[in-house]
């Protein structure tokens, strides 16, 4: 995946700097995520033309415009199937998917589940701000009960989804959580996620400073606890990961919850790819094979 095939010059942060500056609100958590991704790519030295960054729609989904890679800014909720298509057509590319909690767990929830069970080899980073930012502040699937938003002015009465538990249940082979304010930690997770062969999911607390007045940087800072700080924690233990996944309140774990490397990713499992990527193959089917297809019908 992440092998360098061209160019002697090492990639630097500037090579991933997007054509335009991000137009997120000052202080938005997404800035930290962008920087962490760029940092991880520099560390991995992946040429920017071998990376495809794919998003849906939302503040966070504006991401591909702010990083210099091949990018696709698709439809709300549809980044994962698009990314799966990209990967299946050219599995030599490094595929990053970036977006919001609404995009990924709301409208995109079904693709989320299915991309994970297929173990598509991509890295999915959700900038989870527990709110719909771009539409100016409605509840999201990760909004907590009681939260007041424009769509729940008297407080949300619906329970949230649990991204980490769901990812584990759906068979994701790399599951982590980061915090936008801890860029070094986050960028380490992203690096591992990209290196992981298979579906990597990172839920990132990326506070919306404009619309989420509950789950702010200040709220998270004292609560997040790194799983890495507990030497006894075994990220190979699915059930242990499940147990940690539902902690919420005074202590909220971040870090790598789970990784397994024994399952083939979809491109590895798919026999059609044994001859290399689909892209670049000759247009026409071998005439003998084509003839056999017709013979079948005669």
């Amino acid at each position, binding site marked *: 995946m992440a092998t360098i095939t061209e160019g002697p010059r090492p990639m630097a942060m500037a090579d991933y700097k997007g054509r335009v500056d991000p137009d997120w609100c000052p202080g938005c958590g997404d800035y930290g995520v962008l920087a962490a991704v760029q940092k991880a790519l520099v560390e991995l030295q992946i040429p920017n033309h071998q990376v495809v960054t794919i998003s849906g729609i939302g503040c966070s989904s504006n991401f591909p415009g702010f990083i210099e890679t091949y990018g*696709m800014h698709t439809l709300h909720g549809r980044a994962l199937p698009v990314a799966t*298509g990209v990967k*299946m057509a050219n599995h030599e590319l490094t595929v990053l998917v970036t977006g919001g909690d609404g995009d990924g767990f709301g409208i995109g929830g079904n693709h989320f589940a299915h991309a994970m069970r297929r173990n598509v080899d991509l890295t999915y980073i959700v900038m989870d701000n527990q709110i719909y930012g771009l539409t100016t502040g409605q509840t999201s699937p990760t909004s907590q009960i009681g939260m007041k938003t424009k769509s729940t002015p008297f407080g949300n009465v619906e329970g949230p989804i649990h991204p980490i538990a769901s990812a584990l249940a759906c068979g994701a082979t790399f599951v982590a959580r980061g915090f936008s304010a801890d860029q070094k930690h986050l960028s380490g997770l992203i690096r591992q996620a990209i290196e992981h062969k298979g579906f990597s999911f990172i839920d990132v607390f990326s506070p919306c400073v404009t619309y989420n007045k509950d789950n702010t940087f200040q709220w998270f800072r004292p609560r997040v606890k790194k799983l890495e700080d507990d030497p006894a924690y075994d990220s190979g233990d699915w059930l242990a990961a499940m147990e940690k996944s539902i902690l919420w309140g005074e202590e909220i774990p971040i870090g790598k919850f789970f990784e397994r490397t024994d399952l083939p990713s979809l491109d590895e499992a798919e026999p059609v790819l044994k001859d290399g990527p689909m892209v670049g193959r000759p247009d026409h089917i071998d005439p003998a094979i084509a003839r056999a297809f017709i013979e079948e019908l005669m």
Partner: protein
Amino acid sequence: MGHTFTIGIGGAAGQGVATPGDIFAKIFSRRGLHLNAYNAYQSIIRGGHTFLTIRTGADPVTNMGDRIDLLIPLNQDTMDRHLGLLGEGGACLYNADTIQPGTHAEGVQLCALPVSTLADISRNKVAQNTIAIGAAISMMGIGFQSLEDVIREQFGRKAAAVADENVAVARAGYDYATQNFRPFARPLPMSDNRYAVLSGNTALAMGGAAAGVKFYCAYPMSPSTGVLHWMATHAREAGIMVRQVEDELGVVNMAIGAAQAGVRAMCATSGGGFALMSEALGLSAMAEIPIVVIDCQRAGPSTGVPTKTEQGDLWQMLGAAFGDYPRVIAAPLDIADCFTLLAEMWNLVDKFQVPGLVLADLLLSEGRLSVDPKVLDFAPHVDRGEMITSPNGGPGEGGYKRYKITESGVSPRAIPGVPGYTHVVASDEHDEDGVLISDMFTNTHKRRAMMEKRMRKENGIAAAVAPPKLQGPADADVTLIGWGSTQGVIEEARALLAEEGITANQLQVRWIVPLHGEAIVEQLKNAKRTIIVENNYSGQFARYLRSETSFVADGHIRKYDGEPFMPHHIVEAVREQLAGGVTLSVPVHEIMV
């Protein structure tokens, strides 16, 4: 078309109607006969009623025709429903142990098969079917060997013993018929031609494969699922990535992803799935990522009658997704055209970087036709359009502009992986370089320029596609206008009308968008009487044609009962309309399926 012969086989789902159908089809096509098969079935896995019509003849057989010559009812229900279809010279082959014939027309030969005495029915559950096939072959004047070959082939070498047994059972039926039944008056001819027999779904799949489709994905939906089945079965040999996806939203977006990565990516569905896909057609058009989506129409609205045919999705396609954007829409004229159209469609779609929509229907998708194998050209011309797949000299001054404003509206597209051409494709409105102009850089002038750039492609597309041509005599009494799958049945109706002294010509529309309205009006302006024939309630094509041309036909023939037109439906309706007074005919489907 010349003399044809039609077999009707009916039974409950699960009774094995398909197998005799396959056997007859193989036998006919190997005799160099053309054939057309249509299966009227229900949305039920076992039970209910299925009725397969196989029509064969020396000339191309374009539709199911009007008549059954030989009825093979596999159960009483079929006998009761369809015996009345047989006329003078017709015959009915049935298992006399379990089925009672009803009243029948004069001159119909009732052929009772003593199945349990001819075969051990405890061992062979489909003995009645096999015996009937043997008997039928005999009465049609076909040598037994043809049947034996096909049976042996079906079971393959591994099941030689089973094959032997079935051959013996078939032979028993053959011999019994030779001894007891009157052969058909006109034996089936032979020729040296050899045809491939395939369904529209197979043709669509193979057409895609031939056009260089390297990525196919789908969510199962009748009547389009056959495309997925062919693709899945042949994927490894053909080198096609095939994926079954969680839903149609995923399907179309996955195809778009694969297309952006640089391969031809296609998918197929039916109306409900197409509705779910519609949002993403806007993405394809806006991001200028070419894909092909096939809609195999079935009877709606909503889940409707999933196993029945209709031409009811036209306005859904015309209106699919919001906002104005360029696209191509075409309706194949027959099963062979399901194959042929795809290479043409793909070249257009790649050249203009737009979504291409194919409007097939159940009649084509699940019907079967004999096709000259030469038509199934697996090396058609492939034009991928302006694509940048290697850095070459690099983008030059000012860097690469994915959405460069050009006269044609087409901008060369670089695929991911090429150094020096990184860019973002977006569903938001964007500038030439891909930077959004929906947020920070909103700009009415740029917005207008980008809209106009995209829409200019319509000119190029129109120029690349020829207008439809009137078929038949220029000065005909009546001009029949159809689109897509009604080509064949209208053609036959014209021939039948000619026998009655009514001359008819035909304008059959294959390219829906671009339509070439002016050329159509030009061709219709001398028509004595125009009638639009379509398989839906509201005259969807008539309304669309009017929207483009103001043209209003003199009359309409429509059908929305789930079954396709038969030639006599059109003939009678034309007669009725020429007699005056009537401008809308809705033929009754007499075959109770």
